[in-house]
């Protein structure tokens, strides 16, 4: 049903050429926006900085956004200060860490046992780095997509868990996703963490090998969100809810069956979305992910999760985890008022308001712990329950992220 109170119906949404822009692309192409009375134009953006600036200055209404950017932009890290809000997560998982085939070979030689493990730890890589250091060779350079990004934290987490100091033992650079594979091929970088299809592109050409997926690092961990400014959310409450409903519809459709995922791959292959060969997108989005050329694809049904496991809910505990990583790596002052920031930027209340018009079971809590479930589990809520995915972290770490007692929801 179309909300007659829509403040605005013609919207421009920013996307970045990645498989996980699928919810927005599908909502456009399969009529989910239209069904909510919205006419949406997508704008393919070249950088996350561009997404941030264009939202901040009203050139875009909303955008696919790397989740921690809502927090960092509200804090004004990196230059632009603008209060940002998210009330919708666009999905879980979807990234991977790829090494150049040459480096992977050396890592395998250094520690064959570790290289054969699944998930693969960075133990062998540590040996390679130590050898290079002993021979006074320049540190290896790795690419991530933005300084404040899930990708940066995933790569850093993986390296650090094997005793590699990401700030001293390696050199980290930022490269836009579509240029990542080319930079690896040209030898500018030795590896990277990026979303699809930009791992598959390197694997398909044989110059890259996947070490570990985001799903393996942390099962069903948060990825992109729908970002808007706080003032936009205030001025367009009905339109915001309609956007959320449309995108939840698209995400539900994406998770309904494999055929839908394959149809999405065909949609995403178009130049206004990703603009690469459909075959490069169809593998991982349908849960068949190839780690190396010449190997059969491995079955990874949760490589992308768009709706199941309460994937669209904007957990405040996810924001708390991002903030903990920003603090861990010295990107943000330890004295920042985390509670106030998270409550302002992450808005499960708006999500619940939008979901009220849908037949949707919604979590009642805003926080959950991570790393406590090796298997799927059930979250009980009033009048039903939600099937939740495993949330295992590969090194066995557990994060207690429950809301501190006495704080206001």
């Amino acid at each position, binding site marked *: 049903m179309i909300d007659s109170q829509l403040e605005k119906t013609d919207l421009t949404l920013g996307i970045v050429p990645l498989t996980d822009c699928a919810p927005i692309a599908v909502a456009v192409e399969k009529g989910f926006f239209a069904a909510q009375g919205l006419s949406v134009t997508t704008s393919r953006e070249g950088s996350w900085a561009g997404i941030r600036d264009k939202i901040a200055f009203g050139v875009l209404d909303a955008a696919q956004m790397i989740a921690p950017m809502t927090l960092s932009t509200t804090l004004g890290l990196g230059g632009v*200060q603008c209060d940002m809000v998210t009330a919708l997560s666009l999905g879980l998982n979807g990234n991977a860490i790829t090494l150049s085939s040459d480096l992977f070979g050396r890592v395998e030689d250094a520690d064959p046992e570790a290289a054969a493990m699944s998930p693969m730890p960075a133990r062998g890589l540590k040996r390679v780095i130590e050898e290079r250091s002993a021979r006074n060779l320049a540190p290896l350079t790795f690419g991530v997509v933005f300084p404040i990004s899930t990708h940066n934290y995933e790569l850093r987490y993986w390296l650090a868990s094997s005793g590699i100091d990401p700030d001293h033992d390696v050199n980290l*650079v*930022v490269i836009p996703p579509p240029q990542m594979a080319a930079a690896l091929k040209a030898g500018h970088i030795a590896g990277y963490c990026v979303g699809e299809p930009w791992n598959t592109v390197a694997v398909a050409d044989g110059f890259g090998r996947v070490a570990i997926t985001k799903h393996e690092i942390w099962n069903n961990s948060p990825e992109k969100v729908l970002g808007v400014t706080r003032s936009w959310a205030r001025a367009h409450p009905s339109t915001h809810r309609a956007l959320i409903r449309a995108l939840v519809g698209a995400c539900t459709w994406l998770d309904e069956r494999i055929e839908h995922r394959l149809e999405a791959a065909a949609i995403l292959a178009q130049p206004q979305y990703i603009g690469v060969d459909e075959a490069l997108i169809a593998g991982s989005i349908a849960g068949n992910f190839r780690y190396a050329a010449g190997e059969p694809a491995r079955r990874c049904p949760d490589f992308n999760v768009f709706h199941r496991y309460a994937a669209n809910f904007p957990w405040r505990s996810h924001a708390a985890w991002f903030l903990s990583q920003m603090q861990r790596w010295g990107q943000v002052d330890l004295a920042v008022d985390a509670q106030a920031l998270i409550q302002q930027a992450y808005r499960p209340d708006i999500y619940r308001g939008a979901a009220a018009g849908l037949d949707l079971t919604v979590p009642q809590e805003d926080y959950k712990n991570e790393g406590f479930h090796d298997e799927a589990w059930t979250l009980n809520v009033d009048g039903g329950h939600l099937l939740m995915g495993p949330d295992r972290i590969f090194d066995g770490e557990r994060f207690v992220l429950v809301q501190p007692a006495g704080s206001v929801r």
Partner: protein
Amino acid sequence: MTREHSLKILVVDQDRRRGQTLSDVLRISGYDVVNHVTCEDFLPNIVAESQPDVILIDLDSPDRDTLEHLAVIDRDLPRPVVMFAKDDDEKTIERAVRAGVSAYIVDGMSDWRVKPVIDVAVAHFRQYQTLRIELDKAKTSLEDRKSIDRAKALLIEQRGVSEPEAYALMRKLAMDRKQRLGQVARDILAVSEKLQQSHKDRA
């Protein structure tokens, strides 16, 4: 203190020609353009080599994110920082965003030295925008004129009306439908094509 005399500027633009002319304009204005590149080059190396005081980059360039990172991590390079934070005049920045250009400056560089550079870039980008819009308009009006002539010929042939009558008919349709004349002409042509197709299918 060579910096007092000449700012070193790096121009990064996906549009090679726009970047080239901006570099020329800046040079004529007395600035030292140390390099001018497109996104095919590996930016971290270029920044390290050319050590710019100011980087002008098109807003849509994928290399934006690379610069953001250099601003955060690299202590050895002159640290380009985003203009927005330091500029109290938000309108200047909004103009820049809308013109499609962004700027990064070395930490500690005074605003009054950098602002004229940004103004030049914004003016240049705007000029390009205007040109592009005019080019698009010219293209559309040319296409419109072609469609209108073809639709007119079609009406004359099929309905046996005179040229002024055919034109008047299309004008009326456009006003009734609140559409542009070119659109009405294209609709007429499309309907006629469909009719012909269905005749063929039946035959």
